[in-house]
């Protein structure tokens, strides 16, 4: 008995240490130079928590634990070491699925376990258990859908069909209805077979919600979705903590939930959508129909890589605006080469990064960092937007909607009000683009038709390589 109490105390101390390590670790992430050490501290915290748990007196057999740990490490380690930086959005999406899967299985196992406990889980635990399983299950399928869209085996276009909202609402209400019923019936005592069936149906409905939530969402809205699923996975983990009375889960889940929540808000602000709009997954749907200004009667000017090289090569102040097109073409290394070349010639190069450029928060930063672009060359929207005035050449690289001046001066535009990069203020603009297709919002970008704008058509990577060769020859 005494031994058991000392053991329990040790476990709690390990958990407290782990909580502190997590919080301090995240604090390290507020600065690039402390970030790595911070995360190493967090990893040590995690190890501490795991060791502490293995000493838990409830554990009687170790073979299942060992198999799970070995299999998980065998999959996780190569995933961590080998996944290329370009596949990072998919990898983040699928990791939310694994986290949610663990949480949901714990929720189901706990619920089933309470069938043998006199009195059942009780109202309070049932609230936590139900929440955990509901959010866990919808995050499993939601993350898998997001993964599919990012990986490309599920269409990146919004999938809609008549009556979709009605069906979604019915499924959602069904799941919530079962959840509430389960909680209310707990005051009556034990979990009977009826409870088990209700719980099973609720879980299945939650799985369906995950699919229908992400199905109508298009590729460019992925930063919001991925952040939101991040938050859900965290909240589900926190609920697990409530369900089994474990504080480290509550703390870690709350940290993850808060982080995902903040990112979702930042992303939806950067797209000028209300948070409610995001929560109910209403985005991406009706946009295709709204084509504000047509491009008729407007002409663009296209340039050859040689001409572009002349302008870029002699520029003193260049701002590069990367977008999803850069990621698709994997042009980040060519961009870095160009940037170094300009600097060698005495020019200054900065990168302007819109919060929703790419497919997840911070996507462009990671790609450019991978290509060895120093992070003090990367600037956020607020930091650099006033600098476009003083810049000789703005090089837009596979970005579209985030540079559209219509967001500022056309109240009829669907993206009106969205914060954009003030590329149009630059002396000259060079846009590298594959063709004249519209961006994700399905609207024309008047930036492309300005007198100061030149279009450089082609695949970003090959076009930039040509520009680099030309600049070298200047």
């Amino acid at each position, binding site marked *: 008995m005494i031994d058991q109490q000392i053991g329990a105390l040790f476990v709690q101390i390990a958990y407290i240490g782990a909580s502190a390590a997590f919080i301090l670790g995240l604090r390290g992430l*507020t600065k690039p130079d402390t970030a790595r050490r911070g995360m*190493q501290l967090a990893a040590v915290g995690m190890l501490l928590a795991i060791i502490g748990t293995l000493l838990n007196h409830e554990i009687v057999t170790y073979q299942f634990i060992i198999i799970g*740990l070995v299999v998980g490490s065998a999959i996780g380690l190569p995933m*961590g070491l080998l996944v290329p930086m370009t596949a990072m959005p998919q990898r983040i999406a699928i990791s939310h699925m694994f986290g949610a899967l663990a949480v949901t299985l714990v929720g189901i196992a706990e619920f089933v376990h309470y069938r043998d406990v006199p009195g059942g889980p009780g109202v309070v635990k049932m609230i936590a258990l139900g929440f955990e399983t509901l959010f866990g299950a919808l995050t499993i399928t939601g993350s898998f859908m997001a993964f599919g869209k990012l990986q490309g085996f599920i269409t990146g276009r919004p999938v809609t069909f008549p009556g979709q909202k009605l069906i979604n609402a019915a499924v959602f209400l069904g799941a919530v209805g079962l959840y509430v019923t389960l909680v209310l019936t707990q005051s009556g005592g034990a979990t009977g077979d009826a409870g088990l069936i209700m719980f099973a149906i609720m879980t299945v409905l939650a799985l369906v919600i995950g699919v229908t939530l992400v199905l109508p969402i298009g590729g460019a809205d992925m930063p919001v979705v991925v*952040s939101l699923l991040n938050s859900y996975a965290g909240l589900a983990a926190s609920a697990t903590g409530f369900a089994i009375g474990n504080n480290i889960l509550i703390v870690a889940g709350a940290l993850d939930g808060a982080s995902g929540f903040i990112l979702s808000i930042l992303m939806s602000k950067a797209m000028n959508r209300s948070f409610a709009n995001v929560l109910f997954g209403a985005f991406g749907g009706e946009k295709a129909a709204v084509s504000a200004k047509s491009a008729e009667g407007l002409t663009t000017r296209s340039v050859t890589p040689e001409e572009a090289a002349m302008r870029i090569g002699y520029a003193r102040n260049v701002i590069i605006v990367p977008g999803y097109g850069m990621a698709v073409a994997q042009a980040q290394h060519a961009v870095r080469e160009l940037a170094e070349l300009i600097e060698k010639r005495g020019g200054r190069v900065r990168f302007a990064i819109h919060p929703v450029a790419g497919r997840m928060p911070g996507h462009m930063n990671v790609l450019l960092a991978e290509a060895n672009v120093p992070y003090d060359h990367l600037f956020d929207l607020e930091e650099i937007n006033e600098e476009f005035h003083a810049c000789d050449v703005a090089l837009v690289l596979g970005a579209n909607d985030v540079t559209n001046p219509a967001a500022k001066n056309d109240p009829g535009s669907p993206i009106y009000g969205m914060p954009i990069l003030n590329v149009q203020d630059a002396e000259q603009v060079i846009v590298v683009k594959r063709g004249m297709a519209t961006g994700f919002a399905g609207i024309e970008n008047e930036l492309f038709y300005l007198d100061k704008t030149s279009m450089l058509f082609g695949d970003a990577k090959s076009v930039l390589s040509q520009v680099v060769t030309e600049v070298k020859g200047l």
Partner: protein
Amino acid sequence: MTALLTAIGAAAAFLAVTTADTATAAASTTLVDAQIVEVYVFLLAAFTGFQIITKVPPLLHTPLMAATNAISAISLVASIVIAGAERPFFINVMGMVAVAAATINVVGGFVITDRMLKMFKKTEAPK
């Protein structure tokens, strides 16, 4: 500094729960008290998270996601108990799958976060 203070606060609440747990062993009627303290822990942790994470620059948002994902794989702790406790066979197996899924995130998550953070470098001093 606020972050540190809140962290200490959270730790204190944590200890309070430990004591409350011992108390519940004596008198099971105080169960609700323990759960109220859990709510405190959640609120303090969420508040701390908010304070710190709003200060993370957009530059590091992807590593932040990877990192919080790895941290929330702490559900491994709950999975381990289910895989190893005295439960029916199929529950242990479910626990085993949960352990595997959470371990993927713990191992893969910390490794990939470190790989990413290693890439962020400042301009080198001119040679």
